[in-house]
């Protein structure tokens, strides 16, 4: 149980507190994961990010800078937010949870379902951390000690990007979560969650770089995607089903992205 709850007023204070209590401390944003039964924190010291003034969303050029403490619902409601990210925000089904969860927390938390990650990867998101400065989201996710996120940067808000989350029920488990982006030069990014063995119980989406680089017909793409992912059978579905549906979803999203790019 949390026994100490610090509310530092700037990043330096926050980092110092973390250094001081490292073994027992956790960053504390909205609390929707740390307080939830399935992922209840065992730490006793919470370092709240509440007073760090990380709640603004602003456009600089074509890049969108989202404060790490922005609530997912605020991101969803903001007119500057790219459509694909709005789609993914709604994959967090409960509006009450969206009201509480922060974009930084959604990226930093080790979750069984990380519903925003595929779209953030497809949007080529950059992460600004207090410890290491700016880095690509994939590098951030790969590191075992995920640092304190200050900002989430979407480099190009005009990048065409779409997402789809296949579930058993409206609020049910995510089976496959796919995001695809396509730029004017025809370069795509394909990110899928739910198709790789979970690492220590949490998900990390896979990026299909090999397939991104190929020019394939729709039929070839379906098969190539299905053959490139290695999901596990579980209560969500069989291996065959997950592979098949991955191929279909990627192909359909990419086709729609192509249409949108053409229209743009």
């Amino acid at each position, binding site marked *: *149980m949390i026994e100490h*709850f610090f509310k530092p007023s700037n990043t330096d204070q926050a980092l110092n507190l973390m250094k001081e209590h490292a073994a027992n401390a956790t960053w504390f944003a909205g609390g*929707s994961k740390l*307080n939830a039964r399935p992922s209840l924190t065992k730490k006793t010291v919470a370092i709240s990010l509440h007073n760090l003034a990380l709640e603004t969303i602003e456009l600089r050029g074509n890049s969108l800078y989202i404060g790490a403490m922005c*609530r997912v619902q605020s991101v969803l409601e903001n007119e500057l937010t790219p459509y694909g990210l709005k789609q993914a925000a709604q994959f967090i*089904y409960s509006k009450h949870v969206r009201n*509480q969860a922060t974009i930084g927390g959604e990226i930093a938390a080790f979750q069984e379902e990380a519903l925003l990650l595929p779209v953030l990867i497809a949007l080529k998101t950059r992460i600004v951390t207090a410890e290491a400065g700016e880095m690509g989201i994939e590098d951030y996710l790969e590191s075992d000690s995920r640092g304190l996120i200050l900002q989430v940067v979407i480099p190009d808000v005009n990048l065409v990007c779409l997402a789809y989350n296949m579930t058993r029920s409206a*609020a049910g488990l995510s089976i496959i979560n796919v995001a695809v982006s396509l730029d004017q030069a025809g370069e795509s990014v394909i990110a899928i969650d739910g198709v790789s063995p979970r690492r220590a119980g949490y998900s990390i989406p896979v990026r299909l770089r090999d397939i991104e680089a190929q020019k394939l017909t729709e039929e070839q793409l379906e098969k190539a995607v299905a053959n490139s992912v290695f999901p596990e059978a579980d209560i969500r579905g*069989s291996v065959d089903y997950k592979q098949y549906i991955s191929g*279909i979803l990627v192909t359909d999203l990419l086709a729609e992205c192509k249409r949108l790019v053409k229209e743009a």
Partner: protein
Amino acid sequence: MSINLTINDRQQELVCRLGDNVQTLLHKAGFHSVRNSDDGFGFAGSDVILVDGRLLNASLLIAAQLEGTKIYTAESLGKWNQLNHVQQAMIDVGVVQSGYNDPAMALILTELLKHNPNPNRDEIDDALTGIFSRDAGYQQYYEVIELAVNRLKNPEHDKQYAPEFRDDLTFIGKNTPKLDSAKMVQAKPCYVEDRIPADACVIKMLRSPHPHAWLTHLDVTKAEALEGVVTVITYKNCPDIAYTPGGQTAPEPSPLDRRMFCQKLRHVGDRVAAVVAESVEIAEQALKLIEVKYDVLKPVISIDDARAADAPIIHNGPIEYIVGAPDDLDEQNKNADIRDGKVILNFPIGCFPRKNIAASIRGHIGDINKGFNEADHVIERTYESKQVQQLPTETHICYSYMDGDRLVMHDSTQVPWHVRRQVANIIGIKQNKVHIVKERVGGGFGSKQDILLQDVCGWATWITGRGVYFHYTREEEFIANSTRHVAKVHVKIGAKKDGTLTAIDMDFLANTGPYGNHALTVPCNGPALSLPLYPCDNVDFRVTTYYSNICPTGAYQGYGAPKGNFALTMAMAEMAEVLGIDHLEMVEINRVREGQELKILGAIGEGKMPATAPRAMSCALEPILKQGRELINWDGEKKADGDWRIGRGVAIIQQKSGIPDIDQANCSIKMASDGTFIVHSGGADIGTGLDTVVAKLTAEVLRCPIDEITIHSGDTDHTPFDKGAYASSGTCFSGNAAKIAAEAMRTKILTCGAEMLEEAVEDVVLAAPGVVKGKQGEVSYFDIARRAESGTGWGQLMANGCYTTSLFAFPYGANFTEVAVNVRTGEIKLEKFHALLDCGTPINPNLALGQIYGASLRAIGHSLTEELIYDENGIPLTRDLKSYGAPMIGDIPKEFKAVLVPSDDKVGPYGAKSISEIGVNGAAPAIASAIHDACGVWIRDWHFTPEKVLEGLNKL
């Protein structure tokens, strides 16, 4: 420590720890609206509060986060006895049923309208993504919002959303606010959890992690030594009484096959030890101090496992019979192991524990072989259904304490009298020493028909003298509760070329899990509630229920009907395809008609065979099918859209209205000193509005305002016996008992009134509002009451009613569906779901519609998303609402309609029949046959997933 904050505009200091869960903190502080339905999974939304302008789940917050905040709970809505516009609209539309989540719902809707005074459907759907509505099925909330929006513009605005019936009656057939709805929506204390004092002890249960195992070592001494632990109960110190958890009328047609604790463990979640402690933290700490070793046995998971020649025996204890012991009983008991616990049969029910059979029966009419010989076509199919859970928003809970030498228990139960009988029996005391108070019930749907906590809770209080409560977690709801039986139904039907059925053979196999509560009656209702829909002269059926090591099953709304109906309707649909006949035409050709004798029911009993075959005394299937065909545009074009294909399906359904010759209901009425009435109804209102039904029936007979009638119900000390809320018996049995009592009261009032008017009894009548009118004058109930209680009076006017019957009252109905199936992804979209039901005279139409919507959505969930799933070792994997697939607002059909089609029944009060259960019986076959119509795939096992569609299309 303490935190300072503003709650509902009052500055407050809450003494707490920084890490305390806010839901627990606020509920303990008296904010009853902040309820818990999912233990901090953030799914159900019963705990929603407004924090600095944001709606959040309190159970996902800790106290430290509230420092300096401004929060509002649902208690802030309206004023004392004055509802706000949303709360009032909820009551007027009739959406408040069990009410547990309704304060949270009122807060969400009020907040929505504050920021968006005219929301569209998408905005409403988004606002309700965070709240689970298991009882109401969401649809009527659109009407609530419409009404509230209009009232914001015009406070005088009024609109009836449900039709009214029976112009000849004053209260019956009219829309009346549910009597307890204001209390519920305002979060006044009314549930068991609201009655528990701060110093009550708590029970936490150590449960088996294995589906099948012996306890080889159990040492609780360290746990008992922990300060704050009051006692620990195990198989070594609990009463040695065999009983059935099934809350059925005694003698129960279920094997008495469980002990409070047993050395043998038969499912994941079975009881190992109960810690009774002074706080949850201490109890949980004590659980960790219990030393336990298991000898893990091979589990039996499926029906096929249970039937295997070398299957492990689930119950190998001594078998005893109260009456009707078989000749080979000694042989059956030859290798009995007393550690297994006894299996006692009240009478023969085809129970063969050594074959893992909990119950079995066979029945037939006509000549099955002759019937198949007469057929032009014969088909045989097997249909399977999975295990699903009732998911009441209020998890199981009871609280017991001693009052002198009596045990008092506040309980969330459907069966107060069965609880009293069982608890008294298990503890070993007389029933007059036990008092059960049924509180408001936050959803039952059958799961609260069983005795699952009360035995341990009552025993803990009895041996310690302490007040004790036992409140299930959501996980316990999944692993230690009653769920729907798993079924495997083999159906063979024969038909002539014109579609006429010539023979039906149904072999119904059920999986009851570890205990046999309802093992005979649930599966029997499979054939009993499906075969009579299609009267046929040659019918044979067998029912066999197997023990296994899955989590327990028991009663669930619909009982066996959804499974039997799925199998028979699907077989009919498949036969229609073979014959080239439209499925609806095939239904029309073979369906039951009003007045028809239901011969097959003469061959099926629920522990007792009916004296004669019953008749369909009333049946509105003809207008139902006519309306249903038009509403869904059955014959209309089904235009494909890209990869989406459209299909339509239908299923006719029936239910009963109580169990004739087995069940009984009683009611008594007292006239108060001013001529108003106190009605003591035995009936257990579990959110269905039974108390309101009783009040309306009483008012109709006595011609007085409903407001002058107070209902006291479900209390074993203060109301007369009633079988409880199950078998759809409320309206017909408890309602008829109230009507009979009211009629007896009417006779007394007329006699007294006539004497006061000095006129002959035959010359006086009752008239509204509460007077006796003669030829010469009239006298009010007030004056009659005053005279009755005077020194020269007749004594307080009191009357009783008892209802038993040999007659059946069958409600009928049909579900029509339209689905869109994506032949590329396998996705299934429920475009339309129309439920048309004949409940005779709907006593309260808006509440009846709510019952239909709720039941329909539960059945849709069972058909498309819900399932208890196990791994290969029998370990349940779906132990929370999300992984289980609980349906939310995003799962409701795009077009969702409930329609009441009346009939006049001679059995029920004023022609009423039951409504609550029938709604779950038809969704599965209606949806499955629509899927086939759309894409040509027959899915013969619940639930219907995109993966199964793709398999059927040979895409996987």
